[in-house]
Each structure stands twice: as structure tokens, then as C-alpha cells.
């Protein structure tokens, strides 16, 4: 009888656990992009998920909503231009020099500590284009960190919600 009770409760617990993990497979992160004090137009910033092979997996967020300029973000456009995934819900305004922008991005938990990276690429009208302004491996540590940028971005801060 005791055994039955134990098995029953383990079963319930495991079902609960199992169902919990299947439903809650992704987490929202607050992501803050702080720009350097460059002079010029607002920057387009594309945040993408990169798989362990270094290929684009998914677009997480786009700062800049004028599609006219998307093909200037060359590498990403090779991916997005072909797939044309619906990113309307994932766009915000461009960010100018010295400004910062906070956005909410959603990453599946299975991509953390699994060799996936997050990439921030930036482009400014009539100026440079940085494919890897910021890029780092997604680990349970790095998703709570601050990372310095190499182009228009001064730093990126990520925080699980």
C-alpha cells in the first residue's frame, strides 16, 4: 500500500515535472543595447540566434523598422531575405548614437549551454556594417552578463526575466 502511494505520487510528480518542462521551454530575457557616441543616422541592430555551426537559426529582434534598409545588413539578409520570416512583432525603432534600447527577447531553454550563440549585428546608413558587433555563447552565466561591443554598440546587457 505504501508502495502504491509512493509510485502514485512519483508518477504524479513526474507527470507534473514533465509537463512543466514541455510547456515552459523558453524564457524571456530583458536585453539592453547601449550605443557608443557615434555621429550619424540611427543604427539598425539585428539580434539573431546562431546555431553551433555558426549559421543563423532565428531572428530574435530587429531595431529598425524600415524594410528599405534591411538588405544593407548583408549577412543577416542572406538568411532573412530568403526565409522572410514574419518579424513584424519583433521590431522597434533604430537607436542613435549614445542612446540605449531595452527589448524583450525570447530564447528556448534548450538553446542555453548547447553551443548556440547570440549575435548583435549593426549597420548605419552610409557608414560601416559590423556583422559581429557583439556575439557570445549562450550559457546560464552569459545570459546574466554584460558584454562589450566592437562597433556601434558599447555594451549589451542580458537578464532573464
Amino acid at each position, binding site marked *: 500500500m505504501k508502495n502504491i502511494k509512493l509510485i502514485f505520487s512519483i508518477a504524479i510528480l513526474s507527470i507534473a515535472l514533465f509537463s512543466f518542462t514541455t510547456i515552459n521551454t523558453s524564457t524571456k530575457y530583458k536585453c539592453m543595447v547601449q550605443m557608443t557616441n557615434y555621429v550619424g543616422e540611427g543604427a539598425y541592430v539585428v539580434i539573431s540566434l546562431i546555431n553551433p555551426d555558426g549559421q543563423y537559426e532565428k531572428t530574435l529582434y530587429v531595431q529598425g523598422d524600415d524594410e528599405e534598409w534591411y538588405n544593407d545588413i548583408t549577412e543577416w539578409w542572406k538568411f532573412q531575405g530568403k526565409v522572410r520570416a514574419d518579424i513584424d512583432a519583433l521590431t522597434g525603432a533604430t537607436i542613435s548614437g*549614445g542612446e540605449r534600447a*531595452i527589448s*524583450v527577447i525570447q530564447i528556448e531553454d534548450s538553446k542555453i549551454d548547447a553551443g548556440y550563440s547570440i549575435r548583435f549585428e549593426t549597420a548605419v546608413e552610409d557608414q560601416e556594417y559590423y556583422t559581429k558587433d557583439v556575439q557570445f555563447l549562450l550559457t546560464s552565466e552569459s545570459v546574466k552578463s554584460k558584454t562589450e561591443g566592437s562597433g556601434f554598440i558599447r555594451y549589451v546587457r542580458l537578464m532573464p526575466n
Partner: protein
Amino acid sequence: MTLSIWRYSHLTLAIASFVFVFLATITGIVLAFQPISEQMQPFKIESVNQLDVDQTITTFKNKYPEIINIEVDANQFVSASVITADGTSLNGYFNPKTAAFLGEKPEISTFFKFTTNLHRSLFLKGIGRFFVGLGSFLLFLIAITGSILIIKRQSGIKRFFAKVVNENFSQYWHVVLGRLSLIPIIIITLTGVYLSLLKFDLISEKKQKHTVDFQTTAFAEKQPDTNIFNTTRLTEVVNLEFPFSEDEEDYYILKLKDKEVLVHQYSGQVLSQVDYPMVTFLSNLSLTWHTGKGSIVWSIVLLIACLNILFFIYSGFKMTIERRKNKALPKNKFTKDKAEVIILVGSETGQSYTLATAFYKGVIASGKTVYISDLNSYTTYKNAKQLVVFTSTYGEGEAPINAKNFITLLKSAPQEQTINYAVVGFGSLKYKAYCKYAQMVDASLQLHPNFTPNLQLQKIHNQSQSIFKDWLQQWNTVVGTNVSLVLDNPAIKTKKQQTFKVINKTLLNVDNTFVLQLKPTKKINFKSGDLLAVYPKQDGIERLYSIGKMDNQIVISVKKHEFGVCSTYFNTLQKEDVVNAIIKPNPTFNLPNKTKRAVLIANGTGIGPFLGMINTNPQTEKHLFWGGRTKQSLSLYQKYIDSGLQHNTLSSFNVAFSQEQEEKIYVQDIVAKNAAIITQVLGDDGIIMICGSLAMQNNVLKVLNHITTTKLQLPISFYIDNQVIKTDCY
């Protein structure tokens, strides 16, 4: 065709920027509806302006565990980005009082996005932006040169908004609408240029950097009630960004319209404040004024200004094409020192060239040597016997552009022999300074020892060919030549002409006058006072008749002239005959519907339009004054007058006969006798309409002037300027 520098610039700029201005205007019209449609959305919350930032933050924090930012747009819609308790993120409009989610931000329609793109860059990115910006700047210059032209035309900056003479539809409305939309257009163009300059970094926004010293603020006490969130209204906020994390060193960023403030997230202390530079202020102002966002009224003003620009493009090019037709002066066959007849022309727009050229060709055809030039090229003429000057007047009696130096040159270039001269002035009676410059030329020549007049100054209203022909007849007699005009007949617009059936034609009366009744074969809208344009087959020259309208029929009163082509043609008409003609609207001589009282004054056949008016418009009390030669003259019109009196559409009829008694009584005499009617009508916002001969008009105006100055203490010019007195005289 000579043009002043301003007119030339105005036109050249218009041609240069036409394509860009046209595209930007069309798209601008569409985009004016964007802010209007935004304002129509149901996201506006009543009395938002009573909330302060602190209240809003508290409301939101109570409802949502995580808030990214709160924004207030130009429409005063509050939007936010939050994460709810169950972990979903919400982006869109919120009610700031309850923090309730109202709805997602509607996507800007692809149509507006497409139009915006076309409007600012023509889909050409940087290059397109440059051209649109340049077009905007050119439009600004067009507005400025246009204003200068108006100032010159109105003779002074003070008269900028004075009444404009309506000579021509395109010209009149180009000027009137130009003045009205000048300010909006200047605002649109300057803000447009400013926005372009921003895009090209020619104006750069250099914002100061924030400096935060966390050492001093680390242990700051909370400052209740006095912190910036309590003292700032929500409506002043542009964007409030919440601290990124609970870390002490993360802060609020509060962006207001004129400054950016970093606020400590626990104490509410201001960590750093940066005031926006002037450039940011101007940029925001430019954007708001250029797009009209946040204001339906301003959007509508912008919309109207855009529609006006379209009209300016149309009317401007129409005028240019019309003026091009007046071409230039013909090429001379003889040199200035060989020619016997010298023709000098003064014209601002080239209108006078047509008749001058016809005269020149006529003189050549008569076998005389002739030389034609503009007044500014006046010099010595060794062989000249006859000088003929044709000149118009510009503005308030100034010389037209190609005649500005004539009076000075006249003194400096001496002639060896004595030359006979004649001056013809072209103008419009609608201007106060009618043919004033021609008078000055005439006077200057009279004072000059080498010139003797062989004819008086002839003034010609609206390029009237019949008066010009009369003048030519006199000139031929005096000079002993037989010159006739060689006119390039304008193609008769037979296609545009309508057909009218003759309903009735009376026989000629003692004054060689008859009444013709016509009925349009198709339904046409017209009013008494409009003009019937007839193009007789013989010469194709337009003749205009003032018409009366009665029971949808046209009534014209015509005097048959012995050699009158058109009046003779009309006299041969019989019932059921068909006449080709055009009805031209003549709003300056229609009886306005709202007029309570009107005095109608005419002599002879000038009664034509009034025959219609006295039998219609029952709401207007009308008094008719008419002058004729004999009682028999009146019989022609008797039935119309009786019918008007019978139906109460005519209140009184006063008649003067000049030949019935010893003492000659004219229409102005009976007007003078009935001064009470005049003062009553003028005192009650009524109008006076005069139709008939010019001589009668001048005499009547003299009498009216006496009445108004003595009884109403105002000169008649006051009423003429205010269009209370309407005239249609010939």
C-alpha cells in the same frame, strides 16, 4: 517676351522643380490623412493631463511585475511595454489611470509607408532625399519670388492683402490663393529643408553626455513628494525608461520634450540632467509642423496648402502657355534710320504684342517703311516721320518692364527732325491706374520740342479690337495712309460652341435696336449678367454680349451698326434659326442671391442683362433706372418691365428720355433725383449695377459720388473697391 528678373526666377524655379514638387505634393496630400486617421483612434484618455508621473508609475507597478518603458506620443496616447505576472509581454496602448491594456499599436498601413517613402526619397534612398530636399528648397524660393511679385503687383508691401483685380481666372486665383497659403507653404518647405539637412548631417545634433557619480548618491534618502516624478505631468513625458535591473546603479531615464533626466530608482533623486540643444528642439518642431502629427487642424491646413500647390502648378503653367502665345515682336525688314514709321511697344506680359504686330504687318502691307521695337530701345531715328507708341501699364501706373527707361532716354536721345506721334494705351478699366503710363508717355512726348501729336491718346480696354480699328481709321485719315490690321485669326473653337435656337426677334425700332430671344438646345447653367461669345464666320473675332436670363431663355438687346458684322448677322436671324456661341460666366456682373436690395442702372441696350434680373430673384428688392432717347425706344422693353412690376420682382422703374422734351434728361439726372433710393440701398448692404456706355458710367459714377460723399460721408471709390458697385460697360 521680356520678363522681370522676379517673374523669370519664379518661372524658372517652377520649371526646374516641377517634377519633385508635383510628386511631393501628391504624396503630401495622401500623408496629410495619416495624422488625421491616427487621431481618430480610440486611445485618447480623458483628463490625462491631471496625472503625474509618480501616480502612473505606481499604477503600472501594482499591476505588472516588469515594465520596460512608458511612452506618450504626439496624440497623447500612452503606450508601454510590460511583462505580465504570467510572463507574457504586452506592447501597445494602455490607460494610464488604470494601467489596463487597450490594444496593440496598429501597424502603419503599407500604403502610408509606401507613400512616406516616395515622399521623402522617391525610393532612391540618399539621392532621392537630396532631390526632394532640393525641390523643397526651390519651392521655398518660388514662394519668396511669388511674394515679391505680389508686392510689386500690389505696389507696396502694405497693400499685400489689398483686393486683387480679377482679370483672368488663373491669374486671379494664383495670386489670391498664393497669399493665403504663403505661410503654410513657407513652413512646409523650410521644415522640409531642415529635415533633409538633418539627414545629411549638415546640421548635427550634439547631445551632452550624462555623468553620474554613484559615490555620492549611493546612500541617498528617498525624497518623498518633492522628487521629479511628483512634479512632472504625464503629458510632458516623451519616454520613461524603467531601470534595467534592481541594481542600485540602474536608473530611470526620463525623456521630456526639452531635456533628459536620469533618476535614481530608489531615492527619486536626479542623478544627471541634460538639456536638449536648440537643434533637437528645432528638429522636433520641424517634424511636428511638417507632418501635422498630433493636430487635426494643422493637418487640414497642410492638406489645403498641398491642394493649393497643385492648383499653382496648373494655373502657373496655364498662364505661361497663354503668354508664350503672345510670342515676341516680329523681325524688322528695315533699319531704324531708314524707316518712316516707328512703332514702340511697352508690355509687361506680351499681351500688347498681338495688336502691335498686326499693325506692323499692316503698315508693311501698305508699302511704308517701318521699324518696330520696345520702348526701352528708344534712340535716334533719322528718317522717321511717324511715331506710334503702344503701351500697357504695370501695377499702380508704373512702366511695364520693357519701357522702364523710355522717359529718361527720351531726354537723352535727340531727334534731328520733328516727328508726329500717337499713343495707344492698353489696359483694363478694372484698375484704378487705367492706362496711366500711356498718359505719362503721351505727356512726355508732348513736352518734347521734336514731337507733335497727330492724334489724342487712345485708351483701349481689354485689347478691344473694334476700338483699335476705330483708332486705326482715325490714324489713317490723319497720316494719309490706308493701313488695315493683319491679324492671325485665332482658330475658332467650333467644338466648344453650343447651339441656340432663335425663339423670337423683334423688328428694328427707331434707334436701330432689337431684342433677340434664344434658347439653348441643351441644358446649360447660366445667369443674367453672363456673356454670350459669338464668333461670326466673316472674321472669327469674338464678340461679347451681356445676356439676361428669363425662363431659361437668353435675352439680348442689340443695336444694329451699319458695318457691324455681328449685329447685322443677328438682325438677319429668324425664328427657329440656330446660332453657335459660348456662354462665358461673368460672376462679377451677376446679381448675388443673398442681396436684399439692388439698384440697376442702364442706358440704351445696356438694359439687356437687367431684363432677366427684373423678372427673377424675387428675394431682392430691385429699382431699375433706364435712359433712352424717346418713348418709342422704351416700347421694345415694355413687356419685360410690366411683367416684372406685375410679379413684384421689380419694385420701381424710373425712366429718362433725352429727346422727348427740350431739356435733355439723362439717366444720371433721374438717379440724382432719387438719391433716397441710393442711400437706402447702400445703407442696407445692397448693391448697384451699371450697364451701358462708358460715358454713361462715368456720369452716373459722378452723381453717385456726390450722393455718397454728402449723404454717407464715403467716396464712391470705397463702394467700388468693395464690389458694391458692379459695372459692365463698353
